[in-house]
């Protein structure tokens, strides 16, 4: 079994959290603009910047020579280098947006559009780093892309849900975000099933760890509990303050999911006969 690369788990989760949240808050501002949204956008944009910077710093710690990190931008054809470029551009976008919201101004429209595009690009490139790792069958498949995208979308929608629900003037928006969150949980569940199917059906010649226990824990904590909790709050059975719990368990679930992902990173090593 592979050892757990904590720095990569931290980086992928934090970059997904930051990009997902930024995408959601900006899509809300672009598609459903409402007065007073700055009260939500201000803390969330600044939080996205901080979280993304921590994520990038964490990514450096998995390198054998972290101080040589700028070298990793030399080959633009490499997905790792592209991830670095997209990450840095996203930080720049977040910095500009944070600067504007800090002065209680809404970010420029072009910055929102470019920012969302860069965030989506970053998520794609991050997933392609693993898809292109041809030596590792558990990663190098199409379900990795959906898993990374839906993970970020789920975390972003839950963050927005938790923030919107704490402001009574955004009750309609909060309900809509709740519905989106349920859809994202279901999509992430489909991606999780697709991953299992792909891993079990592709002949790899190696034993990929099943990790049933931790996977079940992830399903219960990260998908089933948030699904029921969100639904119960939306129908009014439980208070909206419980969305904070939903946020926490979704993030814990995604950490467990990413841990399973990295533990399955067993390299394809052929020891079969050629004849």
């Amino acid at each position: 079994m592979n050892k757990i690369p904590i720095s990569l788990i931290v980086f992928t989760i934090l970059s997904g959290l930051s990009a997902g949240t930024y995408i959601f808050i900006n899509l809300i501002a672009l598609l459903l603009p409402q007065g007073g949204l700055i009260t939500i956008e201000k803390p969330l944009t600044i939080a996205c910047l901080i979280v993304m910077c921590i994520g990038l710093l964490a990514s450096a710690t998995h390198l054998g020579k972290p101080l040589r990190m700028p070298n990793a931008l030399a080959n633009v054809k490499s997905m790792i280098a592209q991830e670095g470029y997209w990450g840095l551009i996203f930080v720049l976008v977040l910095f500009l947006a944070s600067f504007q919201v800090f002065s209680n101004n809404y970010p420029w429209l072009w910055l929102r559009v470019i920012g969302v595009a860069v965030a989506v690009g970053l998520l794609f490139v991050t997933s392609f780093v693993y898809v292109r790792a041809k030596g590792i069958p558990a990663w190098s498949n199409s379900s990795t892309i959906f898993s990374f995208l839906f993970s970020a979308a789920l975390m972003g929608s839950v963050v927005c849900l938790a923030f919107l629900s704490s402001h009574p003037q955004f009750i309609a928006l909060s309900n809509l975000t709740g519905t989106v969150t349920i859809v994202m949980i279901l999509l992430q569940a489909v991606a999780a099933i697709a991953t299992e199917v792909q891993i079990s059906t592709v002949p790899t010649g190696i034993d990929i760890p099943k990790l049933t226990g931790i996977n079940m824990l992830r399903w219960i904590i990260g998908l089933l509990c948030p699904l029921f909790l969100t639904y119960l709050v939306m129908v009014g059975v439980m208070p909206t303050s419980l969305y904070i719990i939903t946020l926490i368990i979704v993030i814990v679930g995604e950490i467990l999911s990413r841990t399973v992902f990295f533990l399955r990173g067993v390299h394809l090593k052929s020891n079969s006969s050629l004849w």
Partner: protein
Amino acid sequence: MLKKRYGMVIDLRRCFGCQTCVVGCIVWNSIPDGIKWSHVDTAGSKIEHQPMGTFPNVNMSFLPHLCNHCEDPACVRNCPTKAMHKREDGIVLVDQTKCVGCGYCSWSCPYGTPILDPVKKVMSKCTLCAERIGHSEVPFCVANCPGKARIFGDLNDPNSEVSKLIAIRKGRQLCPENGTGPSVYYVGP
């Protein structure tokens, strides 16, 4: 005139799994504890020296692995620092002064060849003994193979021993479906 493309043929009929190539590589290249640049698998088994088949129809053969010094190496394509590079003569090397030790070359190599040097904290791999080749010598594993199972030469020279062996004995590459064009060929039992 074609450029040289150094490669190797491994005669599986001659390999008897003694591991001299593995040990010799470690000694010659001063590879630190815990890693090796080549290894010898027992074909068809996950356990070393475990025969295949059911008694009385059993057999045991070995499959030596080393860097394939591919024509289109995935490690070179995917290295973010350009530390992993391919020389004119086809030898794939890692420039350890540029490498950041991200390990992506190892993830993307279908053979998982590059390995993190635990002392230098950068990637390392088989160099095909490039410095020996520079002095018109063959790689250390080739020179010291007791079974003479390893044959080294220029794959672009049709008159070289390796080219003839590949042609006559239908040399095969390991996992050619990966499309990287390995320069290490195996001729069969």
